[in-house]
C-alpha cells in the first residue's frame, strides 16, 4: 500500500490524481487521513473555534469521504474534495446545532490571545515580535466579525491558500460571488489594520 501511495505523490504533501482512473485514492483512507488531517483540522478549528468539535468534524469529513469514495471522479484535487465535505459539515452543524453550538463554541473558543502565543519570530526583536502579534490578533478579530461565508472564503484563501476557482468548487458558489465575498472580507481586514495603526 505504501509504494502505491508513493507513486501517486507528485509534490510533497499532495496526492495526485494519476491513479484515480483505476482506483479511488480514498480506498487507502489511512494514507489520505495521515496526509490531510492537519489541514482539514486547521480549517475546521478556525471555522467552528472549538478544538473538540473540530476533531469530531475532521473525523466525520474522512468518514464521509470514504463513504462517498465511489462518487469521486478526480475532477478536483483530493484536498478540494475534502475541504468541500468539511465546509458542508460546518454548514450543517451550525444549521442544526443552532444556539447551543455557538454557546459551546464560545466556552472553549480559539481566541486572538491563543493565536498571538503561537506566533514565533526567533530572529526578530522583542518590539517587532510584539507588533506582529498585535497585527495577527487584529486580523483574527476582524475575521471573527465577518459573516460565516466571508470567513470561510477568507480562511480558504489566506490560510489554506486555495485558488479562487478551487474555493468556488469547495463552497459551491460561482467565481464572481467568491471574489465579491473575498474582497469584502479583505476590506474588513484592511480596515481593522488601519484602525490599529491609527491607535
Amino acid at each position, binding site marked *: 500500500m505504501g509504494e502505491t501511495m508513493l507513486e501517486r505523490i507528485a509534490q510533497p504533501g499532495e496526492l495526485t490524481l494519476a491513479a484515480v482512473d483505476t482506483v479511488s485514492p480514498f480506498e487507502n483512507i489511512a494514507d489520505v487521513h495521515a496526509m490531510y488531517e492537519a489541514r482539514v483540522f486547521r480549517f475546521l478549528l478556525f471555522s467552528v473555534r472549538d478544538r473538540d468539535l473540530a476533531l*469530531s468534524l475532521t473525523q466525520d469529513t474522512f468518514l464521509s469521504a470514504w463513504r462517498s469514495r465511489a462518487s469521486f471522479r478526480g475532477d478536483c484535487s483530493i484536498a478540494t474534495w475534502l475541504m468541500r465535505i468539511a465546509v458542508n459539515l460546518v454548514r450543517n452543524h451550525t444549521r442544526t446545532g443552532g444556539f447551543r453550538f455557538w454557546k459551546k463554541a464560545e466556552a472553549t473558543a480559539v481566541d486572538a490571545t491563543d493565536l498571538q502565543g503561537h506566533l514565533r519570530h526567533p530572529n526578530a526583536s522583542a518590539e517587532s515580535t510584539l507588533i506582529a502579534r498585535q497585527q495577527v490578533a487584529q486580523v483574527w478579530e476582524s475575521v471573527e466579525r465577518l459573516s460565516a461565508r466571508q470567513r470561510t472564503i477568507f480562511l480558504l484563501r489566506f490560510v489554506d491558500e486555495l485558488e479562487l476557482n478551487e474555493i468556488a468548487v469547495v463552497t459551491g458558489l460561482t467565481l464572481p460571488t467568491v471574489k465579491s465575498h473575498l474582497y469584502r472580507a479583505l476590506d474588513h481586514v484592511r480596515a481593522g489594520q488601519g484602525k490599529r495603526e491609527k491607535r
Partner: protein
Amino acid sequence: MNSHLSSEQLERVLAGRPSYEVTQHLGKCARCVQDVAAMRAVLGDFRAATASSAEHHRHLAVPVAPARVPRVAWVLASVVLFAGIATPFAVRRQPVQPVVPDVSTQASTAISDEALLNNVQNDLSASVPESLLPLAGTSTNAVNSTDEKRKN
C-alpha cells in the same frame, strides 16, 4: 491609475498575478508598495500562527461523543413503531362475524307474507272485490226500484 490599490488589486498582487496597470502603479507609489508588503507580512504571520495553533490544539482535542439517545427511548420508539406497523394487519385479520338471522323477525315476516297472499287470493276468488262490496248492495236496490217504476 491615480487612486491606491483596491482590495481586489491587492489580492491579485498577493496571489502573484497583478495586472500591468497595477505593476506600473506599484513602480511609482511608495505607499501602495508599503501596504502590499505590510499585508503580505501580516497574512503570512496569521497563516503561521493558525498552523502552529491548530497543531497544538490537534494534540489536545478529544472528539465529541455523539449525543446518545437513552436505551429506554430506543425501546419505546421500537414499541411505537411495531404497534404502528402491526395495527393495520391486526385490524384486517379480525374474523368477520356471520350475520345470524333473528328467528322471531323471520317468523313474523313469514306470517305477514302468508296473510297478504291469503288476502290477495280471497280478493281474486270473490265475485265482487272487497273494495267494491259497499257498492254491491246499492246497485241491487237501484235495479229493483227501476223495475217497480216500469211496472207502474
